[in-house]
């Protein structure tokens, strides 16, 4: 058996609980809530990048997460020195969540610190190395800013497991936000034990060959996304795909299934891969890139799953 029914129900329950909590924090932004909830549940060491225009709710979400985890927050300025970061973190042994605001203001030197931190869960100050356990990273950045912004290197972006983009609200959502008495609720509702339970269930979820085929075919479609006769994504995307597998498994379990469908993958294509493309192309030809991603998603949805 792939997984006991009871375990699937546990995952569904916990997932729904987190979504319900996020519903009390943000109006609309369904994809953001799904991606954040899934990223938190599938791996306790997730690196999450939140992007969007100012005032979309990134800081609000961060506040909620800060209330639910033992966290450290830092705001990056263009003149922030690596030493400042290191000093802030070196004594945070029980760190569960690192929140970084205005991530794209980090200079190159600062970016190097983050590489070590994200990749190895440690920082090195002089001869001393400070190690940390699993912790989440939730970084935010504004897309529309141009002044004081540095080109964050691809190596850094690649270290983020997901890049979750805030979209403009629909009319009824704006209406609700402006004219109802909605106040975000930051109360603690996420238990670490629940997260660990879900993570363990995901790890024990045995996928079969059909599931593997669907995932491999999807990864192939994503890898072949191209623009101007050039592939947008370089390399084998191993890091991205590894995280993708966890997300996909969670998505299937959260839907009450013990098998994978292409729809489980489609929901996460943007957040898993969009930030891994060459930023120079992405910034110049943003609309064209999005179109290509849409086409890739259509192709993934066209994949068929035979009956087990």
């Amino acid at each position: 058996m792939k997984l006991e029914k009871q375990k699937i129900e546990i995952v569904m329950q916990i997932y729904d609980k987190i979504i319900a909590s996020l519903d009390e924090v943000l109006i609309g932004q369904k994809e953001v809530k799904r991606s954040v909830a899934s990223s938190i549940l599938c791996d306790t060491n997730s690196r999450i990048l939140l992007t969007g225009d100012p005032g979309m709710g990134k800081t609000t979400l961060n506040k909620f997460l800060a209330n639910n985890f033992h966290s450290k927050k830092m705001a990056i300025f263009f003149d922030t020195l690596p030493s400042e970061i290191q000093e802030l973190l070196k004594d945070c042994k029980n760190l569960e969540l690192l929140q970084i605001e205005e991530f794209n203001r980090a200079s190159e030197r600062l970016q190097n610190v983050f590489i070590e931190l994200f990749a190895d869960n440690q920082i090195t100050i002089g001869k001393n190395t400070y190690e940390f356990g699993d912790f989440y990273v939730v970084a935010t950045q504004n897309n529309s800013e141009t002044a004081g912004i540095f080109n964050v290197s691809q190596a850094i972006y690649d270290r983020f497991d997901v890049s979750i983009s805030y979209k403009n609200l629909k009319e009824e959502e704006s209406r609700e936000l402006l004219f109802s008495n909605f106040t975000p609720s930051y109360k603690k509702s996420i238990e670490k034990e629940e997260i660990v339970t879900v993570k363990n269930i995901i790890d024990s979820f045995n996928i079969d060959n059909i599931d593997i085929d669907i995932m491999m075919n999807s990864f192939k479609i994503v890898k072949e996304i191209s623009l101007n006769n050039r592939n947008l994504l370089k390399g084998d995307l191993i890091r991205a795909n590894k995280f993708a597998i966890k997300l996909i498994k969670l998505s299937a379990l959260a839907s009450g299934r013990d098998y994978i469908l292409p729809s489980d993958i489609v929901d996460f294509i943007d957040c898993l891969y969009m930030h891994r493309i060459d930023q120079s192309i992405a910034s110049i030809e943003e609309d064209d890139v999005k179109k290509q991603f849409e086409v890739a998603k259509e192709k993934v949805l066209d994949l068929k799953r035979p009956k087990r």
Partner: protein
Amino acid sequence: MKNIDIVRENIDKIQKNGDLYDVIISKENLSLKNYNLIKGNIFWFSRILYGATLIYDKIKSHFINIDEIKEAQDKIREVVGVNIDIVIPKQDNMFTMNNKSKKRKKIAIFYKVENIDIQKYISNLKKIANFCSTYNIKNIILGEKEILNFLCDEDIKNRKKIDISILLEIKTKENHKEEKILVLTKEELYDIIQKLEAVEIEKDFLRKIANEIKDPIIKKVVEEFNKNNDLNKLKKIVVSRLELYLNSKGIYKDKEVGKVIEIVTVKEQYVKVLTKDTKGNTISSFILSLYNYLEVSNYKNLLEKRNKKCDNKEIMQIATLYLYLCNKIKKENFQENSESFYDRIYLDYKGNKQNPYMRSKSWSLLLNLKRMVIMAYCTHAIIFCIKTSIEHLDSTLEENDKVTFIKKAYDKVVTIYQNAFDLEWDILDAIKNLLKRKNWSETILLETEENSLIYDENTNSYTGDKKSTETNYNTIATIYPLCNDKELLPEYYAVGYSKESYYEKGKMNYKITTPLISFADLKDKEEVETLFEISYEISKDDLKKIVEEDHINLLQTLYPIGKDYLMIDIKIIDVENYNQCIYINHNRASDIGNKIFPPEKEVLLQMKKPKIKCTYGLKKEEEIVYEDKIHFYEGETNKGMFVEALKKASPDIKDSKKKIKDAIKEGLKLEKDASLEEILDAIQNKHYSKTPIKDANLSKDMKKMNEEEYFKAVASLDSLICNLSASLVNESDKNLMYITGYKGNSFLLTEEDAHAWNMNPNGTIIDVTPKGNLEQGEETKENIEESIITWGIKNHIHIYTIIILILFVLNKKYGKEITITIKSHKIKKLLETEEIEKAYVKINEILYGGTNIPRKKTVYEWLDSIQKEFTNLEKEKLKELKRELKTYTNEKETIEKAIKLVNEIPYISENNKEIQKKLSSKKRIV
């Protein structure tokens, strides 16, 4: 709606209806359909179908919504982001134009723009290339002129160049020289883009600057660029080298602060300068333009300064190169003319201006010819198949209901076909004649004159216009008057008489006897006043028979009746060669009778178009007296060969049964002792109809009647035709023999003139056919047309037609909106039903197996899930799914919901966004 759906939907629309120019031109009716082609079709008997396709085309053109196609094109343009035209190249689509087959018309992207700068042009071409790549469009058409603004002939020499008129079948009315266009594949377009990008950069200028730069990395990368045109790589490396040089003097001493570190970063035309002390404290931070940083006012100034001796000459040189690559140097201000080729035509159309373009004749001709030939063969084939099948059935099967049904169907098809042919020809004829005539009185005069065909003795020829010989029916015979008195010419021409008849299954069958010509009775010309000549065709087989028999045995067909007409002579003549002629007159007949000589046999066998000409007249001495009779002729007993034959036949005639006579009287609503005259009057007082039985709509099928019932039914009909009248007369008095022949008073006897009447052995004509003789054809036609119109009005057909048209228009305009509203409501109701999640899970179980736990969702979440999880299910799979669901006998309610859900899956998949929009528009936050 997703871009991919937008593009697919609008491309489908364009492929189905034609591109923007196609729809404009079809509205403007510029395609060629001329009279000669219609006539050609008539000849092929396919005009019904051809006419139907023409009418359909006209209606379709009328309803084509040009704005819809324009909108479709605009929506695709929004996705692409460039003002392109979606075109259907006519050459590739020659056999799918105007064709509703599933084969999709190939489309191409047409981009033609004036006054555009190279950067914008490259950017637009890239967008087009990506679009074509994404949506698999194989051909891109560009204006040659625009490309030659930036490239030379050499760069495009291997590309396919063509006249726009040939590709799109569109040319100027004034025959201006047509512009050339390039037809490119995707790969060729990428190649052009690369060439344009390379051209954008003046390589000579680059090389010149690079030569002045010392940095070897920059030199190398510029050389590489000149080969590979990789502009991005060049720019990246140049900016990194510039930053390196700018930061090389990063540490310096500040008067106040001491040792400071300066960090410079370059982004586009700006630099950010950050100064920190050794402890890492920020002293200053500012952003300024690169020009300011280098202390120059503009690019021109930079160009001047870089060559001067200074400490930062290398930086100046690299900055010169970098800023050039950033394209901050703009040439003249180009203003792109954003109207595309089809936009201009569309605007002219909207402004009611004359379209300067038209469809080429050859294209329209080709389409029409293709359609005509297909329709011709289809119709021919259909009619041929039906005809042969019926004929085969007729000969092989016994009469039964099915066979009769098929025969009736066949008759109907042929009748409709024939009527359509008649109607069309009449319309054409009427229009033709209308155009020829000046006024109506002249018309009548013209007709009368045309009908007069007078024999001129002096010239031995006929005067008058022989156009009256033209007719729609097969000609039986031609009557040539040889005198000036039209009154002496016959009206009746007998073919044969019947002395035997029998009734069978709703039909009276008469055994017609045609007597042979008695040559012995040919009269001497001197004794007879020559009046007219009857000419009719004889077959070559009959000639062969004459030759074989050595004697001329000819049937007495078309013997004139009504007066004592006497035959004078007979000629067997070859119309194509009047020298080939056998002439038999009184003298010859007296000598040798109807014998034929060997040389004459040769002549007969060589005849190509043989005809018989019989000359008739009346005896000279006797005064010709006749009265204006109503229905029968009295007076002198008729003489002549035919009458002689009748006299001989009469003794063998048996009287008809009393009960039949009584049945006829009953049908005519006469007393049992009614006289023959009363019967004849009653018959004559009825109406005339070519289809009296059909008009009567009898309750019982005639075939099932016995003889008595049959005659009663016929006698009770409101209208009669000549053969039924003659039949009734014959049964009322068997001495009044049933005669078949022709009745006509023009110079041409045609099939239409076929007639039946009665004659007594003395040769008296009894013709009680109800009133309305030769003109009754038209009346009947009018009657039919009238009755159709009356029936239509009686049954409110006109109202129903108007309602249907209104509904059709409403459906076209609002149909989709109404459908979506109704459907959205229905789907929402379904998705809100209790335990819909169980139904959903059931579907998943059947499709995929495995564990499926029901999960509650909102309507929007359901719509989302359905679209994502089931969108790739084909129709067949859905049918199979439904079948499998139906096999589950437990959980009836869940299965029912699941089946309903499966039924809605295709609609939800296609219209997900619209449904969500519709549902959310109703939602209001309280």
